[in-house]
């Protein structure tokens, strides 16, 4: 191939505006800390927020002029914009809940915020990646930053353990993904998703479907790790439990959403010709993810670990939408991930505050009688938990509704039945928290973490509004998702 280098046009740079802003922002944060010194640590979080808001604006601007960028390596369409906005909002909410946590743990530093920004940059690339090497690079930028975040409190053994597990298993999975990419490149001679699709569906191409399926399977290993789908969900509970609470909040929402974004894009575009080969595998995986997540969560006493398993279970619901393999399924997954991001961050925000210094109060029973002390916060927590259960008028309900609707439309009757029954089982462990907060008497240690700091309050309000809007007036988001879901056209 001859390389005809044409310098990217200005509009192509605008299409990667959020990535640019995030990278610059993260770098400035780290420099600023060095320049301003110890005394100005309080300004770090607002500064990070400012950059995130800028990037959010950048994503909107980029989304107004959709099209490919950099030799079709990236493509900024509605789908990309949706996920960019989603991860950036998750980033904002995570930064809001991180400030007080870091101060409490004496770990205020610019690195933390810079890493969040870098990680988001990777996820933003993932959202718009249109080419397998970009997928790899985005995945790694996002992951490397989160490896460090997961072990951010260097002297905490739980943090260490979370980081090392996440790092080793994450890199292992990425290697699989990459090996799959290598072979796809070998078979098709390209890494561009559309061209792979064209090659695989063209009648003139000669290739072994079995080999391509093996490649798809290896890439599935990589993606399944990142989205914590069975049978590669094993790391999730340990990592989400061991990482600092605000980081767990971030990790269960943003990297997961971005990984799903790219997973869906790759399988709906590149491998859409091989549906009947990968669909049964994903079917089993979706089913196992839901069952493992929900049934393991039933037995947890540690609230972080329970939410970790719940996160696995929710990945299973999204997998159902992936298996549906239709535009409705893609839209359903998008909507589900958005509503999951809000309800999960809301729940984690409260946990982040509640666990107290050194994350002492992580037992579900530690929340006994919390409703008596902080009725409003307990009510918000209930609101998020009801959404996680999928009670109507919350975002979680329409998420599930939409996912299972798309599954029924694709004739996945049994998967739908299993999914619905699973969501009924899940109600039990979410209700346990409500039971403990409302129906148990408070102990001396209830609410030992004190009043809820302003940042967490803001994040709670934001998440609650998100859950409410998605649950009561979902039309706008749904229609946006519907319009952006036409990936393969």
């Amino acid at each position, binding site marked *: *191939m*001859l*390389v005809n280098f044409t310098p990217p046009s200005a509009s192509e740079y605008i299409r990667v505006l959020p990535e640019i802003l995030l990278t610059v922002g993260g770098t400035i944060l780290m420099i600023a800390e060095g320049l301003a010194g110890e005394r100005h640590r309080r300004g770090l979080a607002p500064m990070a927020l400012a950059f995130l808001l800028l990037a959010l604006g950048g994503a909107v601007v980029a989304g107004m002029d959709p099209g490919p960028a950099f030799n079709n390596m990236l493509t900024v369409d509605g789908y990309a914009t949706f996920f960019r906005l989603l991860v950036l909002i998750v980033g904002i909410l995570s930064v809001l809940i991180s400030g007080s946590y870091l101060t409490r743990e004496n770990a205020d530093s610019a690195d933390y915020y810079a890493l969040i920004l870098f990680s988001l940059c990777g996820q933003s690339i993932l959202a718009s990646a249109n080419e397998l*090497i970009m997928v*790899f*690079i985005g995945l*790694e930028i996002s992951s*490397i930053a989160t*490896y*460090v975040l997961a*072990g951010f409190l*260097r*002297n905490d*053994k*739980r943090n*260490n*353990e*979370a*980081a*090392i*597990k996440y*790092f*080793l298993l994450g*890199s*292992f999975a990425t*290697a*699989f993904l*990459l*090996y799959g*990419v*290598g*072979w796809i*490149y*070998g078979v098709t*001679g*390209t*890494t561009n998703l559309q061209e792979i699709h064209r090659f695989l569906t063209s009648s003139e191409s000669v290739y072994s479907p079995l080999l391509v399926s093996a490649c798809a399977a290896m890439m599935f290993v990589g993606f399944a790790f990142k989205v914590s789908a069975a049978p590669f969900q094993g790391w999730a*509970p*340990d990592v989400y*439990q*061991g990482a600092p609470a605000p980081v767990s909040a971030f990790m269960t929402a943003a990297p997961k959403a971005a990984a799903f974004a790219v997973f869906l894009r790759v399988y709906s575009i590149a491998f859409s010709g091989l549906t009947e080969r990968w669909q049964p595998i994903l079917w089993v995986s979706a089913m196992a993810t839901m069952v493992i997540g929900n049934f393991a969560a039933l037995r947890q006493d*540690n609230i972080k*670990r329970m939410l970790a398993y719940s996160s696995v279970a929710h990945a299973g619901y999204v997998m159902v939408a992936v298996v549906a393999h239709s535009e409705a399924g893609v839209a359903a997954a998008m909507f589900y991930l958005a509503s999951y991001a809000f309800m999960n961050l809301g729940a984690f925000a409260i946990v982040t505050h509640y666990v107290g210094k050194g994350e002492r109060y992580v037992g579900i029973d530690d929340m006994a009688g919390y409703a008596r002390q902080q009725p409003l916060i307990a009510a918000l927590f209930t609101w998020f938990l009801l959404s996680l259960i999928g009670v109507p008028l919350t975002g979680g309900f329409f998420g599930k509704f939409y996912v299972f609707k798309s599954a029924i439309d694709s004739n996945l009757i049994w998967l739908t039945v299993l999914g619905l029954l699973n969501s009924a089982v899940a109600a039990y462990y979410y209700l346990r928290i409500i039971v403990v907060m409302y129906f148990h008497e408070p102990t001396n240690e209830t609410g030992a973490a004190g009043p809820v700091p302003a940042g967490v309050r803001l994040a709670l309000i934001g998440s609650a509004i998100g859950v409410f809007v998605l649950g009561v007036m979902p039309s706008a988001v749904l229609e946006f998702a519907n319009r952006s879901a036409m990936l393969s056209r």
Partner: protein
Amino acid sequence: MPPIPLPTAVPLTYYLILSAILFALGVAGFLFRKSLITVFMSIELMLNAVNLTFVTFSYQHKQVDGHLFTFFVMVVAAAEAAVGLAIILTVFKNRGTLAVDEIDSLKL
């Protein structure tokens, strides 16, 4: 690009088989070795197997793309190594061990 003389002695398939063996060795090392450092090196081995695959296919397709990808992978692997070794170091500082089996304080 000027045509490159084909090395007729070694067929391309051999490179692919070699890379597959390297990859498999990496997987085996990851699964069965006990020391964090060895496990980590196994991952690097897997990435290098991928690099070999890329280069081989790039050669086969007569494209430079595959060579470029190798550089991407190498850069990312270097970044990963920096972060990974730092994490391994903190683990060692806090626990005084590098054995995989002993890192199990979180509930199963």
